[in-house]
């Protein structure tokens, strides 16, 4: 069961990655990165059980924290008008 979950997570990570590459808008990328981060947290959890050492869940908590603060930082900085122009991301 853990194996299936791992594969599913890896597939979803690839999909998020594609969104992060293609954009086209800034917000698509931020959302993609956020989703990617969430999946990493889950992958850490699943992988821990898969290898039999789930005590490394600490790491998962920390990734979630970094993810949260990172997204806030990204949003905060693109608030600046000079920074956010209407040009399409490429």
């Amino acid at each position: 069961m853990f194996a299936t979950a791992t594969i599913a997570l890896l597939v979803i990570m690839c999909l998020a990655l594609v969104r992060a590459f293609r954009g086209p808008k800034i917000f698509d990328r931020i959302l993609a990165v956020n989703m990617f981060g969430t999946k990493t947290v889950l992958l850490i959890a699943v992988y821990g059980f898969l290898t039999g050492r789930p005590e490394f869940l600490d790491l998962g908590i920390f990734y979630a924290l970094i993810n949260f603060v990172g997204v806030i930082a990204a949003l905060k900085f693109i608030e600046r008008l000079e920074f956010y122009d209407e040009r399409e991301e490429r």
Partner: protein
Amino acid sequence: MDSFFNEVISGALGRYNYWVVIFLMMSGFYVVIGSTNLVKKIVGLNIFQTSVFILYISIGKINGGTAPIVWANAERYSNPLPHVLILTAIVVGVATTALGLSLIMRIKHAYNTVEEDEILAISLEEDEDE
């Protein structure tokens, strides 16, 4: 012939990790020396260094090993020494990044651009004026 292929395959399986990491390293290196935007150079430098870290950690991995924290069920542990070296190297890396980025901010303020070509052009003009 058969044994030759076996050798190639097992040789490749024993090294695919290194090869991918070398590809990553070289891509990062290319971004550093190939791009003219200073921010992108710093990103490239980080990618280059991070990939070197992966190389080190690959050196320390042992098949069937587990994280080097005492565990009752452990058969064998992976090598902790590369982990220690890389912890130090990561910290050195972020220190360099912070310094590089603050330099970029000052350069932007002084030249109003962060493209190497444009800065070079301005500097050449300045050299001639002197």
